[in-house]
């Protein structure tokens, strides 16, 4: 099963590197969103609290612009039926999930680097806390966006449906992650933000379990 999932991941990676659809849309969105924020801010000094929020605004909408590709591309090319014949549902999901996790990590690393370079108030005072919230937040984002991508792939208005459906599901993750980013910028210790970290971790566990349980039904229609 792992070998099959890996093969599926490699297939996705190759087709992505050939078309560069998701990478391009993510990169364009990051650049456009951050430039607009830069223009809007102007000479004003943005407070730490606001930077943490703006950071997650860019992450959320960037994720919404590119991550639905995982399943939408299969549907558009008409290859989803073949995929159903070849592999078990959980294998398909694992392959797509790994692909999306790598995409999310790349995307957020780029966003973090850009923020650190362009915003003077984005100075991470507690790097360990930031790293922890970054890793768990990214996993949660990847899992949720993958399962929602699978749900909307068969629907009509994919572009609008994706962020609308994702928002309520991602809300607990985003609230806690904004708080965690803020604490990391503030220099709050890990022990003081253990509740938020635990929320993000339990969110990851819930979404992973729910995704693997429900994917059979979503995939088989």
């Amino acid at each position: 099963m792992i070998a099959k999932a890996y093969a599926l991941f490699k297939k996705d990676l190759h087709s992505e590197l050939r078309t560069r659809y998701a990478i391009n849309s993510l990169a364009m969105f990051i650049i456009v969103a951050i430039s607009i924020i830069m223009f809007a801010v102007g000479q004003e000094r943005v407070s730490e609290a606001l930077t943490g929020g703006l950071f997650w605004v860019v992450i959320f909408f960037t994720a919404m612009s590119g991550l639905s590709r995982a399943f939408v591309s299969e549907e558009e090319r008409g290859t989803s039926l073949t995929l159903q014949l070849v592999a078990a549902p959980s294998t398909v999901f694992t392959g797509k999930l790994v692909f999306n996790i790598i995409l999310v990590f790349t995307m957020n690393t780029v966003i973090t680097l850009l923020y650190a370079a362009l915003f003077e108030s984005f100075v991470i005072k507690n790097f360990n806390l930031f790293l922890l919230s970054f890793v768990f937040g990214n996993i949660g984002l990847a899992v949720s966006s993958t399962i929602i991508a699978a749900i909307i792939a068969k629907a009509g208005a994919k572009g609008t449906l994706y962020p609308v459906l994702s928002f309520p599901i991602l809300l607990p993750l985003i609230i806690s992650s904004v708080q965690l980013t803020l604490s990391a910028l503030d220099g709050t210790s890990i022990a003081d933000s253990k509740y938020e970290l635990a929320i993000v971790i339990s969110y990851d566990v819930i979404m992973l379990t729910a995704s693997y349980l429900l994917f059979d039904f979503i995939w088989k229609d």
Partner: protein
Amino acid sequence: MKNKYMFGGFIIVVFLGIMIYLFTQSNIQYQDDFTKVMNTNKTVKATGTWVKEEGYDIDKENKQFIFYMKDENGNKMKVVYDGTMPNNFESASSVVVTGKYVNGYFHARDILTKCPSKYEGQEVQTSTM
């Protein structure tokens, strides 16, 4: 096959419970003991009263409003707020400041004042006829 759903459902319910519990814990908490406010580096809502004898200070250059607060046990704390003085500050019976204790003073980002009510209760007059 049935077991898988039971097990998965169990995990989801347990972690959902943990998450909801933690959500109620992670909000900003009220603190009326200033020694605790000074020792934590968390954002808290400190409740106390304004020390009238010390007065207040308005720093026009940095746009800051500086005053002293004390809690029920008489612990005093310097409060610095980035902004102007609230209108009814002088008549307030108690003050709630949201912020964090850093570098020897409480850096407030929000002030709430509680005012004595204008509408005091009157004794009910009963007629004896």
